[in-house]
């Protein structure tokens, strides 16, 4: 029901959509890569934030859209990645090694959290992931020697790439864009791989997959850890872009925003959640300022509206309209 086009690739004409998709991806990438050349520095910074958040939303989409595991605590791994990368950068190792460290730390935490959460299905999964996210935020708040407590880690040095310090909006943007594209590609490859097919099978009928001999809990845990690692990468990019990591980055509201981005964008495509992320960031940053700090109010209302009005998201609506 959720995405016929992706589950039955053999039933549609092969070449033309493939060419069209490749052209669209190339044009989109080019447009994104050239963005600092035609955007003001402030807009470039906003776009960088959108990319960071978009990667978080896309990694969550692997869980929500492909495996059918809606997580309310995905920002925990985002936060762990951000803290690990920032900690590493503050202690002399910035750039790519810091990102890798962030990914590894996030994957480790996701392994521990997932071992508990994935066993419990359905609504228990929602509750447990919510608890994991909140407890991670609390841990970030109280473990002062590593996380800097409620002040967070600030003054994170800019990433360096073979001696080049990336501290301009445009250079930071290109750095983030490169890893955003790599992360998105990794997620896509995972979803279209043989394991990805198993994951969709679990989403549609876990009992049947188990009867077929798949160790579904283990496969789900693998997906959870992978999504956590990509969220950790996004966290590392956050540390590089924002140069500041606070407990709120790991918390409930960030998780909720990521899930909102996925739900608005629709779970049927990979660009949908990124577009949802763009909308969420624009609402939070731009509109939040004009609303005198009432960003959460606007976002809460957005949640309510989305649930009542577009249960399948922007991407799905467009699909339905263009369908004959």
């Amino acid at each position, binding site marked *: 029901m959720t995405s016929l086009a992706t589950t039955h690739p053999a039933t549609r004409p092969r070449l033309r959509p493939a060419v069209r998709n490749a052209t669209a991806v190339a044009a989109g990438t080019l447009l994104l890569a050239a963005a600092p050349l035609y955007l003001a520095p402030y807009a470039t910074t906003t776009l960088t934030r959108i990319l960071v958040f978009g990667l978080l939303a896309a990694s969550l989409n692997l869980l929500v859209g492909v495996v059918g595991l809606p997580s309310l605590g995905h920002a925990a791994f985002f936060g762990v990645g951000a803290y690990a990368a920032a900690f590493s950068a503050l202690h002399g190792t910035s750039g790519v090694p810091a990102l890798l460290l962030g990914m590894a730390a996030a994957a480790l935490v996701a392994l521990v959290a997932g071992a508990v959460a994935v066993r419990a299905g359905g*609504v228990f999964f929602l509750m447990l992931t919510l608890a994991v996210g909140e407890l991670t935020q609390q841990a970030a708040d109280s473990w002062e020697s590593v996380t800097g407590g409620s002040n967070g880690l600030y003054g994170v040095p800019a990433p360096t790439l073979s001696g080049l310090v990336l501290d301009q909006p445009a250079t930071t943007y290109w750095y983030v864009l490169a890893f955003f594209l790599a992360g998105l590609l990794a997620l896509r490859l995972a979803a279209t791989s043989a394991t990805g097919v198993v994951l969709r099978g679990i989403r549609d009928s876990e009992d049947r997959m188990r009867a077929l001999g798949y160790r579904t809990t283990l496969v789900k845990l693998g997906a959870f850890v992978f999504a956590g690692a990509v969220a950790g990468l996004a966290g590392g990019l956050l540390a590089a872009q924002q140069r500041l990591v606070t407990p709120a980055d790991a918390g409930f509201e960030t998780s909720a925003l990521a899930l909102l981005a996925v739900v608005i964008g629709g779970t049927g495509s990979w660009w949908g959640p990124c577009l949802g992320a763009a909308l969420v960031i624009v609402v939070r940053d731009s509109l939040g300022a004009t609303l005198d700090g009432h960003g959460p109010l606007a976002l*809460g209302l957005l949640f309510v509206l989305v*649930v009542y009005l577009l249960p399948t998201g922007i991407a799905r609506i467009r699909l339905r309209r263009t369908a004959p």
Partner: protein
Amino acid sequence: MPTAQIALTAMVNGLAIGLLLFITAAGLSLIFGMMDVLNLAHGALFLTGAYLAWWIGGEQQTWPSLGRAVVAVVVFGAAAGGLLSLLTAPLSRRSHLEQALLTLGIALVAADVLSALFGDDVRATEPPAGLAGTVTVAGWSYPSYRLALVGVAALLAAAVYWTVERTSLGALFRATVGDRDMVAAVGVDPRLVRGGVFVLGSVLATLAGLLGAPIYHARPGLDTTILVLALVVVVVGGLGSIRGPLIAALLFGQVESVGRAVLPGLASFLLFGTLAAVLVVRPRGLFTLAPGGRR
């Protein structure tokens, strides 16, 4: 023996917190068990109760102001429960995720409205005159409000337990958990049950907020803290039952209180560790009702 006294204080604190948690989580468990709605706005209800206590009684409660506050939180809780029931009714055939997202949106709106109304400062409220000091028993002194809280919360918890497990109203609740359609088929208006459950669950949350105000102090962010504790209690205790959350709440009250006293920096890890340990042994929680009947 100061160590023994500290331990005793931490344990009685844990009992008070545990009973408060039970009252909060019982509402969450009832609403989920009976109406299949995961109400993520439950923490906001608790926080509103705590803010109402401060708004009506100020920093120093008196007995008349406490009485007014009780009336106010019951009225507010009932109204909020009715509203939540109406808002979630159109989604009753949709997925848990969508219902959770709706209540999450409501929780975000509520948190923002509360911080606009009451500011971002901690709104502490002190209990009325007779309960403000400490009592000393055999050299061990303890805040009298917390002792009274243990008593009141135990009474309230017992009333909830007795209502659900022993009365015909409770039988209706339990029957709805077991088979909602059959309850409708024997002639009970499901809309009435739905409204009733939401009102009862919400009043329990706002009352817990009022009782907890002198301990937790109303502040932004308290809503999610309480929501997570209540969720953990419900997950461990088993959804839809009342005995499970009671035991789980008392357990997590001790973990919170003793854990914070012994290992202050690691309290959140300890909470998750306990949760993980219970779920490894009992993946479905302690007392989950089997579909079709009680165990």
